[in-house]
């Protein structure tokens, strides 16, 4: 169900999540350090730099090879060790193969021919430009062990969290205990004193003076009552107003979507233009949720995210991106090679809901006005999950119409009206409001 928040910071779940993520990353880091240290002996023997290797791998190899899963070519994790163990082939064979696989095959090498046949006679692209150092860097990267998220998850419930919890509890418990002891002590002291007094026959008479109690005095002072009433009413009015003004304003609305779609990855990391997918924003009143065939233009060949992205997703957002891509495949009916025809639509939850009586046209703003999508939708390229960034109230619309200038340049439609209106208002550039953008009928019909 819909929840509305005043701001993101008010969203308790949001903040809480962040805390968890923080501890998770630090744990991961520690764990990796330990793992790395334990394997340091094996790494030292290879003289390659896995960090360089990673970037080389991503540029040259990643199009056809995954580390842990066969793609166009075989999975490459630990390839050198595997070759040595299974085939007795050393690095020189690998170097020859990488630089010119066709040459190795034609030389009649039996394993080379076997591999070639095994992978549908698709020759591997030759990489003569790679130096020995490059290749050893890449191999160093491939020799890195697979990160094991299971272990990570297991350890997530381990010491640090518990330690933190306990320490807080201890402090709180200790404080509570202290106050409790104090209270008991006070009672005991009081009792002892009373006993002494009794013993010495001093009557402890709680003699109350016949003065008016404070509340009565307050009630009798009409001025004070009036002031308090006014203050109370004003305060109540303020809160009631605040409550009613946020009814129907869903700023920060961030529903759980059927597919965890990350705008951060698509628009941010990959830099895909908004209108590439939301193409109807150019011509239509709706920006349009991209149909699944638009997704498949790219995701036909991108069935998995890179390991890093995957790890990032697992660690920071607790989501397996590959499973999310699989959800897309299920919806569109793609079995990895072709369409099965068994499609089921994705029921996205609409985030930006204007009421029916307000007419809004995307193309007017995006195409004619040249407004950036982010002006109304916020930093979408940073949003892991889309949320409503702006209040989308009428006042918000109107403010923008008052402040924004109409983009009249090179638009023949505006030539005449701009000339006449700018003369009338005595301004160089006209705001939307001056152009008539505050009239009721422009948005309500």
């Amino acid at each position, binding site marked *: 169900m819909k929840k509305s928040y005043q701001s993101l910071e008010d969203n308790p779940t949001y903040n809480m999540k962040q805390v968890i993520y923080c501890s998770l990353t630090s744990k991961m880091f520690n764990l990796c350090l330990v793992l790395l240290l334990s394997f340091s002996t094996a790494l030292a023997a290879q003289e390659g730099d896995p960090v360089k290797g990673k970037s080389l791998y991503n540029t040259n190899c990643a199009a056809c090879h995954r580390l842990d899963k066969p793609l166009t070519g075989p999975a490459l994790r630990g390839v050198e060790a595997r070759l040595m163990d299974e085939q007795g082939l050393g690095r020189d064979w690998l170097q020859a193969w990488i630089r010119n696989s066709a040459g190795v095959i034609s030389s009649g090498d039996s394993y080379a021919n076997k591999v070639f046949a095994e992978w549908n006679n698709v020759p591997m692209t030759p990489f003569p430009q790679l130096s020995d150092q490059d290749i050893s860097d890449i191999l160093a990267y491939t020799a890195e062990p697979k990160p094991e998220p299971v272990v990570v998850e297991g350890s997530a419930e381990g010491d640090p969290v518990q330690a933190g919890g306990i320490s807080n509890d201890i402090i709180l418990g200790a404080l509570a205990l202290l106050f409790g002891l104090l209270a008991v002590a006070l009672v005991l002291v009081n009792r002892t004193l009373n006993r002494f007094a009794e013993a010495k026959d001093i009557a402890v008479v709680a003699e109350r003076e016949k003065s008016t109690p404070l509340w009565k005095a307050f009630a009798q002072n009409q001025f004070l009552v009036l002031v308090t009433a006014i203050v109370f009413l004003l305060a109540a009015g303020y809160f009631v107003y605040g409550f009613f003004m946020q009814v129907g304003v869903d700023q920060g609305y961030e529903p759980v979507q059927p597919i965890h779609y990350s705008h951060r990855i698509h628009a941010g990391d990959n830099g895909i233009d908004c209108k590439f997918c939301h193409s109807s924003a150019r011509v239509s009143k709706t920006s349009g949720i991209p149909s699944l065939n638009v997704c498949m233009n790219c995701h036909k060949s991108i069935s998995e995210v890179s390991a890093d992205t995957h790890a990032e997703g697992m660690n920071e957002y607790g989501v397996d991106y590959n499973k999310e891509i699989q959800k897309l495949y299920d919806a569109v009916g793609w079995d990895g090679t072709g369409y099965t025809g068994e499609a089921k639509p994705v029921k996205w939850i609409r985030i930006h809901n204007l009421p029916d009586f307000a007419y809004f*046209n995307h193309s007017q703003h995006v195409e004619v006005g040249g407004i950036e999508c982010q002006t109304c939708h916020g930093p979408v390229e940073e949003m892991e999950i889309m949320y409503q960034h702006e209040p989308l109230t009428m006042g918000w619309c109107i403010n923008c119409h008052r402040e924004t200038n109409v983009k009249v340049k090179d638009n023949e*439609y505006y030539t005449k009206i701009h000339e006449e209106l700018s003369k009338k208002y005595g301004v160089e550039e006209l705001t939307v409001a001056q152009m008539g953008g505050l009239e009721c009928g422009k948005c309500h*019909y």
Partner: protein
Amino acid sequence: MSSNKKYWKSVEELNENSSIVEALQQNEFVEEIPTDDFLGDKESLESSSTSRRDFLKYVGFSTAAASLAACEGPVIKSIPYIVQPTEIVPGVANYYATTIADGFDFTSVLVKTREGRPIKIENNLDAASNGVANARVNASVLGLYDNLRVKSPMKGDSKISWETFMSETTSKLNGLNGKPIVLLTQSMPSPSTNKLIAEFKAKYGNVSHVSYDAVSESATLDAYQAKYGTRGMANYDFSKAMTIVSVGADFLGDWQGGGFESAYAKKRIPENGKMSRHIQFESNMSLSGANADKRVSLTPSQQKLALAKLYSYVTGVALPGSLPEALDKAVKDAAKELSKAGSNGVVVSGIQDVNAQTTVLEINEHLRSKAFDPKTTIKIRQGSNKAVTQLVADMKAGKIGAIIMNGVNPMYTLPNASDFKEGLAKTELSVAFSMKQDETSTNCEYIAATPHNLESWGDFEFKTGHYSMMQPTIRPLFDTKQFQDVLMAWTETSGTYRDYIKSVWTAGILNGSSFNKAVQDGVFVTGSSGFGANGSSTTTTTSSELQDKKDRTFLGGVIHDVAVGVGIKDEDKDVYKTTTTTTTVNNGNSLDTSAVLTGGTAARALAASAKEGKLELSLYTKTGMGDGQQANNPWLQEFPDPITRATWDNYITLSQADAKAYDLINENVANGGLNGSYVDVTVNGVTVPKVPVLIQPGQAKGSVGLAFGYGRTSKALKEEMKTGVNAYPLYQDFNAVQEVTISKVAGEHEFACVQLHNTLMGRGDIIKETTLEVFNTKDKKHWNAVPEVSLNHISTPVSSPDVDLWDEFDRSIGHHFNLSIDLNACTGCGACVIACHAENNVPVVGKSEMRRSRDMHWLRIDRYYSSEDTFKDDLDKKNNISGLGSSLSEFGELEDPADNPQVVFQPVMCQHCNHAPCETVCPVAATVHGRQGQNQMAYNRCVGTRYCANNCPYKVRRFNWFLYNKNDEFDYYMNDDLGRMVLNPDVVVRSRGVMEKCSMCIQKTQKTILDAKRDGRAIKDGEFETACSAACGNGAMIFGDVNDKDSKISALKEDDRMYHMLEYVGTKPNVIYQTKVRNS
């Protein structure tokens, strides 16, 4: 005022002492809100079960509930396409050219679709030769979303699959043992269907094809066939006629299938001091009679005689028979004018009599009428009375093996439906291709569910050489197959019907032109033919050919580009080679004319056949309902008849004199509703009981009228739509004219008639009218003077700023929209009313609400009666009445002008006053003025005080008394998911308690502006349209930007005929009217 006419809308208004007229003039809301009844009555207050405390409890609870409910918004799902069709962009409309051909209306149209849903019918301007979409065609899109459609093939009451249907019917067809198969279809001038039927005949042998029109034009077809050899009707082009004489032909209505009004209207606007003259002889008051310059009312039998006499006077052949003197003189005058006009004259007749139709053809030939085009055959009516009668007899005799029906409903439309039912039971196989479980299909063995026109493929030849293409605009909503698909399956023809059409067209019609282009255009014209019935004529064939045949998808494609505002790229534009071939044909004696009675024989026979009855009934079709196949369409049910302004009903129309003779009354009751007596109507022993009576000014004495299309039963209609009485049982021998007896029965019928509603507070300066003579000879101030008001005892024109209460705003910058309505070109057809419904999501309120004057029409067409010569005398007479004795008789005489009034139609919508009285009284500023001239209405701001409606001098504001959508009380079309698919997503659906009114289609002007902005271009004249101006095929409504000095509307605003309604009020409206000029 241009003349001394007094206008009146109802006979009730002639009665100066009528309290109801007074009440209607003075009160915006006729019914008082009964607060006094309730609050003033202490007893009822005390006995009320709801105590004050209960009331407060309810109020408290509902306030709390409402505020709590408002806190939580609904979760709205957005479901994108899986694979989005390339031509669909959500939020952008696509237009497809197609055809509506339901057997009664045949029109080429454009269909506006949004997200794949057809939502509106618009005119296909390429197809102007076939007429424009009338009210019924405009409304037909709602039929697509009819919840009562048959959703799959059925056997009896149970649903079956198409496989079962095909296997069972095929085996039955094969097992008939030579017993004949009959295809009973609507008129289908379809080349492909006819070829398919021929193939079906070839395969199954003993097959006959019978065409059947519910309202027969058989006599016209017979006469034409006898004279010219082909079965069809002669074409008329009224834009070429200067003198039109019509004897009983409602050619602005459904005569010969309709579609003549655009050409007629062209010559009705005075140009260089000339306009056509139209003389109408008729008994019922029809649309044509209402538009005529001179209308002569006479009974149907007198019409026959008048036509014969007309022939006699025009040709000089003497004929027996005599008419009453006044009529004879009228006929003689008409003949004189016709003879004078010569080839500029034309005669048409709607009398369903072979002799009458032959006589008409002969008069037109004699005149060598330019408007008369017998070589272009109209093919949209093909039914033969003889064949249908024979078929029913054969069926009854058990001679027919199988009957397959498509597009017909004989159980409802046949006068001898019971015979047909009997016959149906004797057939071995009966299949009805139908969209509904209607009267016929429920009596058949199988119902083959057919798609709507908008879901089907088809091709039609409306007139010789004028082809129209039907293409689906949406995938079939239900499990349906069209007649042709099944025919193809029965004949084992492979492929789809589209492929079949394509092959037929490529082989025979296109002559090398592109099929895809024909589908895209929706129309294809092979050549236009000249005129002249005898002697030689010249046919010019212009064939256009694509010079560069580009391959492009026929769906979407260029239309899509245009729709999304991209426009056609220059390189995509088609370049045509135009070749013109001229063929001269001598057709003097080429036709077999032996069967035709010539030289006045037909006229003589016609005169002899004119038998006068005591009371003659003319059956007619109403503008809104036609033959009744769209009776389940709430838009059409609520469409006010242009003449009577009655909705949701049919009725006997009769003259005041006859009403008196039969002691029948019409009276307006306290709430403004009209009540009428009931009569039993009997023709040859067949009685239709309890028909309400509506007294119709202008109805010929001794004649009554009754409309087809009502009184339907069966599961095809919702209960609310089962209104009126069925007139088809009276349509004996397919003769629309019958001798009839009527007898009064008890009770009073409650009409939902809007004719007295929303009167203009007794103000008279509404319609300006003059005659052609005055118009041509006198200065504007004589016939279209600007009203003057007194300022410091000096008469000042109301247009002067000195007498204005408001300050003038500068409206010279940007667009400033005006709408011009030409009272000369408006025929009152009502297409604009339905177009407005479709465009603006106007709700349907139902009969009882209509009766309470709570209609929601944003656009109404007011109909005013007037009578010139006698009326002033009548007023004097009335003023001189002294004493009770004479008043009784003389008051009766006062209603004489109702005998034959003149009629003016005036479309009225919000006038978008620059100085709007409504805006100043709104307490919440919900209605304000825009710079572009629109009076804008923000519904979500309105709190429903209705002050604006009270203060509106034009009474065009409509109040939502109820929630009309998703409300079971108003189960018309906005109450089910299917019906709501017709709603225009760009216009908000209004809720209860808000005021609404015409917005001047601001959504359309805004779209035009946006498209221009996106393209970065200036807007050309003609780009701005409203729904009504786009629907008007007569050119009566012109919309545009008056700040564009070269635009048509600017010229119209400066025209001498231009006036503002109620100009003296000083509202400065943005809707302008053009003074009516009558050629009398």
